[in-house]
């Protein structure tokens, strides 16, 4: 009986994504004429990815999040993601209100709030249809 939601060895996916983002920062900052900051950003992301791989050896939770994910780790990940989204929504709403109180347009917070709201509604509808 399958009780594990992800059993494949994909533990390198997150560190590789981290390094890829570091490269993207390097390119973006180089284009902006700040290559030193780009190298620093890449170094931070490489260090973060390396720390994840090292932590995977010692922490069952990190290992679960990166690689061998069982249902409890998945539930923890889901809740943490939801709380993260709530924090972002709060920041977006407060920033939007502060901006319009200053007589500004509210951009880009209005667009971020719009995308978040639409995504939530569409996701609820899709999940509702799926049962």
């Amino acid at each position: 009986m399958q009780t594990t939601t992800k059993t494949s060895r994909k533990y390198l996916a997150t560190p590789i994504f981290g390094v890829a983002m570091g490269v993207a920062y390097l390119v973006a900052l180089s284009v902006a004429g700040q290559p030193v900051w780009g190298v620093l950003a890449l170094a931070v992301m490489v260090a973060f990815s390396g720390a994840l791989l090292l932590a995977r050896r010692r922490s069952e939770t990190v290992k679960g999040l990166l690689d061998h994910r069982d249902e409890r780790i998945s539930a923890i990940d889901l809740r943490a993601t939801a709380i993260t989204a709530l924090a972002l929504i709060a920041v977006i709403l407060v920033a939007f209100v502060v901006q319009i109180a200053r007589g500004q347009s509210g951009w880009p917070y209005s667009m971020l709030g719009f995308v978040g709201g639409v995504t939530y509604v569409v996701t609820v509808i899709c999940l509702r249809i799926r049962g």
Partner: protein
Amino acid sequence: MTLGASQVRNDVRERRVAKGLSQADLAQRLDVSRQTINSIETDRYTPSLPLAIAIARFFGVTVEEIFHADHN
């Protein structure tokens, strides 16, 4: 009726110890983490139905023999 984690008790620890298994052993057999077994045994996590069935089958009992819902 909604049952929270604290309302579902279980005998996993007793049955595991009776079999002479460690939490890590049971976790490996059930393809979950050792922390998950510990959380189930201490009633901090209520497993999904598939995992509850897997646990019951492993010990050769029914789900209701190993998991006890407190209905008030």
